[in-house]
């Protein structure tokens, strides 16, 4: 053996997040510095997929110690190599610090962000080099495929997947094994396996991370599926906006073909499986399975009514099994470790883990994988580190633009497919947006509605027109023009969209508004009946005043006001001219004495014109 043994592995995340914060040049600098110090025979620099903590990127992890360095820049590289790789010392200034407590946590496995996580689907992401099939194999990769092809019948495989209780990770949570069985039983010689990697939910990037960080797990899962449903051809439908994912997947397919793990007669079993990539243009509706299939066929990406389901009549009219990236990625481990192992993780009816893209008003944002059944409080406070700037938690939206929100009373909810649905939110694709007290829930639901209605394909009326009408109503409400009938109208439109839309896009578009109404109806009423936005965000309903008691007459607000509607000289109480104010919030931000008062639905008493500081009310 001529391959040297490396005492240290330096893993640099080159996921899309870290890449955009400069991981590429950090890698080059690291390789250069390692060579300059002639360490290349002992230290290996490896590019990996996403670690989930993208906000702290570029992330560099040094093994065997498991040292976790964040926000590493090229200027840090020389010292990093000197201190850590030569002298074995921790470079304190690159170590992660817990927000608030400022406690330094140098080791990967002790960082609170990771402590409550359980990485199963993402087990290889950030740990192996995704461009090396050998590293995947070193972690047990393709053993499940080998086992399936040499020891199991296709019925055995389906039974095993059914027994694991795996539910589809694409949103609806349908039992994966059962779906496979439908496809397997459907009559026909030619069948297809499709992987849905469209990932249209804005802000979600778990599927991308898997394709970028562990592409072979998806390939292996799809090949196993092909064997059990009787298909020798698969398609991965991935949006073209994911160039790195596509590149790594393509490379992985080539490597698997070279090893004979894709192609004809895999493992000498006679079973063959071929995989192709189909790039999508990135329309949200193309994530819906019938639209996706139409798009692969080269047709316009529009959904069609189901049944027939793709399992019976899918791609080119043939029986087709479609699953999400994460669903496939879980399969090899279920086969390797057994259905019981998987079923024991999570909750009885939702076994396994959930992956969320945690964003919004939390200290630590990123991609997390947690066992089903964990509470929202644990996710938001223990992993997410709580709400920044001492603000109050207000709501959390799960399931993306077709999901729903939950208020503080839902924080102790144990998250799984069913509990979320009962509470009016959904698991969906795994988006999780946390908002604080400064978010207006009418505005918040309007944001999702704007997205969903813009992405309507227009084929069916309830979705196309219903979405627009609802958006008009919400816009009116946020502008202070709402009427008492609006709420009933929203509810009526929602009912129609839910029952009459062609696909789940239209059916679920009212979700965010309905859940906001369920938990925050008072806020809607305040807008409509009192012209008041409780979160003080809707500009037509707020006003700014200079508090005559607090103002010291420093003139800062007057100087900074972009429309010059503030009156007053030095040492005089300043006055905002209400008619000209554009509610830009500048004075509120710049006043060094917190003398600017922001009000919605009320006013305070101020002098008619500037008077000397201290003389008000005397």
């Amino acid at each position, binding site marked *: 053996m001529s391959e040297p043994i*490396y005492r240290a592995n330096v893993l640099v995340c080159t996921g899309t997040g870290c890449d955009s914060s400069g991981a590429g040049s950090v890698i080059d600098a690291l390789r250069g510095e390692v060579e300059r110090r002639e360490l290349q025979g002992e230290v290996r620099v490896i590019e990996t997929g996403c670690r989930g903590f993208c906000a702290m990127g570029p992330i560099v992890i040094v093994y*065997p110690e498991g040292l976790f360095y964040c926000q590493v820049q090229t200027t840090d590289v020389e010292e990093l190599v000197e201190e850590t790789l030569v002298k074995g010392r921790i470079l304190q200034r690159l170590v992660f610090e817990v927000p608030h407590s400022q406690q330094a946590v140098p080791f990967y496995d002790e960082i609170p962000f990771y402590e409550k996580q359980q990485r199963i689907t993402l087990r290889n992401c950030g740990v192996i080099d995704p461009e090396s099939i050998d590293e995947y194999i070193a972690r047990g990769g393709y053993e499940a495929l080998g086992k399936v092809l040499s020891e199991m019948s296709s019925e055995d495989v389906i039974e095993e997947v059914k027994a694991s209780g795996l539910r589809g990770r694409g949103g609806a949570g349908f039992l994966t094994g059962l779906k496979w069985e439908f496809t397997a039983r459907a009559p026909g010689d030619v069948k297809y396996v499709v992987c849905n990697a469209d990932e249209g939910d804005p802000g979600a990037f778990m599927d991308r991370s898997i394709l970028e960080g562990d592409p072979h797990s998806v390939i292996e899962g799809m090949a196993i599926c092909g064997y059990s449903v009787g298909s020798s051809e698969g398609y991965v439908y991935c949006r073209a906006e994911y160039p790195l994912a596509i590149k790594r997947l393509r490379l992985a397919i080539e*490597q698997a073909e070279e090893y004979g793990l894709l192609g004809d007669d895999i493992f000498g079993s006679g079973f063959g499986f071929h995989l192709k990539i189909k790039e999508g243009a990135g329309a949200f509706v193309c994530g819906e399975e019938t639209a996706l299939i139409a798009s692969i066929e080269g047709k316009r990406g529009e959904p069609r009514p189901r049944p027939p389901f793709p399992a019976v009549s899918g791609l080119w009219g043939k029986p087709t099994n479609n699953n999400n990236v994460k669903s496939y990625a879980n399969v090899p481990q279920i086969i390797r470790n057994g259905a019981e192992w998987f079923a024991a993780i999570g909750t009885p009816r939702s076994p396994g883990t959930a992956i969320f893209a945690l964003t919004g008003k939390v200290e630590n944002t990123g991609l997390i994988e947690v066992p089903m059944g964990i509470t929202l409080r644990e996710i938001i406070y223990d992993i997410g580190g709580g709400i920044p700037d001492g603000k109050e938690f207000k709501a959390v939206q799960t399931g993306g633009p077709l999901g729903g929100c939950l208020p503080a009373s839902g924080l102790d909810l144990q998250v799984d497919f069913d509990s979320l649905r009962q509470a009016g939110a959904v698991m969906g694709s795994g988006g999780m947006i946390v908002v604080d007290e400064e978010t207006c829930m009418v505005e918040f639901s309007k944001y999702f509605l704007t997205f969903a209605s813009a992405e309507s394909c227009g084929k069916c009326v309830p979705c196309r027109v219903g979405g627009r009408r609802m958006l008009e109503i919400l816009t009116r409400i946020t502008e202070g023009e709402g009427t008492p009938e609006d709420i009933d109208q929203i509810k009526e439109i929602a009912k129609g969209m839910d029952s009459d839309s062609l696909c789940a896009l239209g059916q679920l578009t009212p979700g965010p508004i309905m859940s906001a109404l369920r938990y925050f109806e008072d806020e809607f009423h305040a807008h409509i009946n009192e012209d008041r936005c409780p979160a003080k965000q809707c500009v037509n309903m707020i006003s700014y005043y200079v508090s005559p008691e607090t103002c010291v007459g420093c003139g800062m607000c007057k100087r900074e006001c972009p429309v010059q509607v503030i009156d007053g000289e030095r040492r005089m109480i300043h006055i905002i001219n209400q008619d000209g104010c554009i509610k830009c919030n500048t004075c509120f931000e710049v006043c060094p004495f917190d003398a600017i008062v922001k009000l919605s639905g009320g006013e305070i008493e101020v002098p008619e014109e500037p008077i000397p500081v201290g003389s008000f009310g005397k």
Partner: protein
Amino acid sequence: MAQIKSLEELRRLRERVERDISTRRDTGTTIIVGMGTCGIASGARETMRAILEEVRRRDMDVNVTTVGCIGMCNKEPLVDIEQAGKPRVSYGNITPDMAPRLIEEHLVNGQVVEEWVVGRLQEDE
């Protein structure tokens, strides 16, 4: 690349490539080489290379890491061996030619090379 035609062949390949990622696992055994300025000056780099070479030759499952100066500069190069459940043993003045014997006796035969020992550290001290 050769095609993999059976589960056996896959497992053989796995054994071969597993070592590549072994530093990313806890092997239970760590060899720690003192790499302060003092260590480097007295030849710790060469000692480490010799240790790595020996580990490779014997295809052993151990992690090799470095550590800064620990204040026994006259005993450099210092090499510590840490095994799960056993006290950490520090060896002093380890030159490259001593590496094979150190590894053979301590790690393969499980016997501490008493004459080279300069200290012992109980776990969790």
